[in-house]
């Protein structure tokens, strides 16, 4: 984005905005009533027994919370941009932890068992999830290249088949596709295992989305590149392979990276086929002792960490391609 060279005052440093914000925050804290929480106990020397503090206690608690909240914002607003980002991230993460903590979880449960539950999730589940996603993204990429070329060709059959394919697979919920492939193919006499049918569903679905990404990438190469190649007497395949696709790749990589990250999480849907990936194991391991939330949160954390790693890798690849062209 273009950052203007003329900078406005920070909103937080304008008294009117600050006052308005404080009143709004106060109203919200007052409405939610935090008197019976840990904050009320902290203030008991002032307001007495939280249970009996009434209107005054409720107002006092909201008032203190508002001062803490707005003061925190003000303090952060004076820090440098990078520090601001870091502090806000940390605070939001702490809030998230506090939220999870409020579930009254049995954290030790995650590490219990021989081998430990989290160990099984990582050694079996994580591996299966990555394996399914990686194979699917490779197949989806091949489908997408073929699909994009077919959609750009003026061969009626190729265009019709490709557009029917993208329309169908973008038009059905992925979960439904998984069921249809797993249960439908055996009807035709093809016995298909859970993992291959999961991979087939993910590849076909994401191949359809990526077909559009590749098509747009190929189309955004200026016409002059085709003309210059044609004028040199290059045949079609050579133009595509040596001139057009290499220039499309930097344009295709960011959205493809997004697709890969999305696929990694959508691979959780194949748990309905009984594949031992992260989601399935989370449900299975938690169900035994009714400790569902512990295992689901573990799965959530694994997905999140995996996504952060992939985003970092994607950013690096993007930077590398930006330098080259």
């Amino acid at each position, binding site marked *: 984005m273009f950052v203007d060279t003329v900078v406005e005052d920070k909103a937080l440093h304008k008294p009117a905005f600050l006052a308005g914000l404080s009143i709004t925050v106060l109203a919200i804290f007052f409405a939610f009533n935090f008197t019976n929480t840990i904050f009320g106990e902290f203030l008991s020397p002032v307001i007495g027994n939280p249970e009996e503090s009434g209107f005054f206690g409720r107002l006092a608690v909201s008032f203190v919370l508002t001062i803490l909240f707005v003061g925190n914002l003000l303090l952060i607003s004076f820090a440098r941009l990078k520090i601001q980002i870091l502090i806000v991230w940390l605070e939001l993460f702490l809030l998230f932890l506090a939220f999870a903590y409020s579930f009254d979880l049995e954290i030790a449960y995650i590490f219990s068992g021989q081998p430990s539950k989290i160990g099984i999730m990582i050694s079996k589940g994580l591996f299966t999830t990555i394996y399914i996603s990686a194979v699917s993204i490779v197949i989806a990429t091949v489908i997408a290249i073929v699909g994009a070329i077919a959609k750009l060709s003026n061969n009626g059959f190729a265009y019709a088949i490709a557009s029917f394919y993208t329309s169908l697979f973008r038009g059905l919920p992925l979960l439904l596709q998984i069921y249809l492939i797993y249960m439908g193919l055996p009807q035709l006499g093809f016995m298909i295992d859970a993992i291959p049918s999961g991979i087939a569903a993910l590849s076909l679905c994401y191949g359809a989305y990526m077909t559009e990404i590749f098509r747009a990438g190929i189309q955004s190469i200026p016409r002059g590149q085709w003309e210059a190649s044609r004028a*040199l007497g290059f045949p079609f395949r050579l133009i595509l392979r*040596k001139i057009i696709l290499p220039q499309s790749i930097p344009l295709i990589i960011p959205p493809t990276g997004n697709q890969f990250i999305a696929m990694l999480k959508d691979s959780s849907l194949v748990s309905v086929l009984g594949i031992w990936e992260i989601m399935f194991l989370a449900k299975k391991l938690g169900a035994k002792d009714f400790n569902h939330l512990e295992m689901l949160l573990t799965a959530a954390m694994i997905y999140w960490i995996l996504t952060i790693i992939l985003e970092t890798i994607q950013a690096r690849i993007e930077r590398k391609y930006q330098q080259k062209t």
Partner: protein
Amino acid sequence: MANNNSKVNPIISLKNVSKWYDDFQALKNIDLEIKLKEKIVICGPSGSGKSTLIRCLNRLEAHQEGQIHVNGIELHEKMKDIDTVRQDIGMVFQSFNLFPHLTVLENCMAGPNWVRGISEDEAKERAMSLLEQVKIPEQADKYPEQLSGGQQQRVAIARSLCMQPKVMLFDEPTSALDPEMVSEVLDTMVELAKSGMTMICVTHEMGFARQVADRIIFMDEGEIVEQNSPEEFFNNPKSDRTKGFLDQVLS
């Protein structure tokens, strides 16, 4: 062109060529013969069909009526050997159209190496000698975007010459350039003309036309209005449309 020496086979000939964009007729019954080593300049107001005409010569555009023969081969919709024909016709574009993901040297090596079946070493040698001819051998390892417009256009000329074409087509090669870069490209083209290359140039550079052209063709509204030697064309234009055009570009 009835007084053409009939013994010299024309390298390019057009008979009664017409072209339409939907309802708009871009070319009207064009007859033209171009001999080997001839230098032709095509000029005319914008929208007169001169770029369309030159782009029909390597079939970047399709004509709907009449015949175009290049090097004895007729260009038509069902032809099988269009790539071979194109390999013998170099083309330089207004917007250069260099391959941005390849270095200058790789741009020049691509054609000979990929479709002429010439070894990489030989293609490199040839590319370097042509980059020297257009006076930018020191830029060989840079990418096109690191070069000025004039330099890019000279690379584009070298890239076409690397294919050792029989004819060179220039489609307004200096129109996209900053004024101070026009002359470096024109100088390159003048030298190429001296070396005996067959050239067909669409350009508004009348100084270049006067210096180099064997024949100047003036087009307007899809027709060839007038064609003549530079002296006759500039000093003694026959048609009123030519006079009007010359008044505008020479003032």
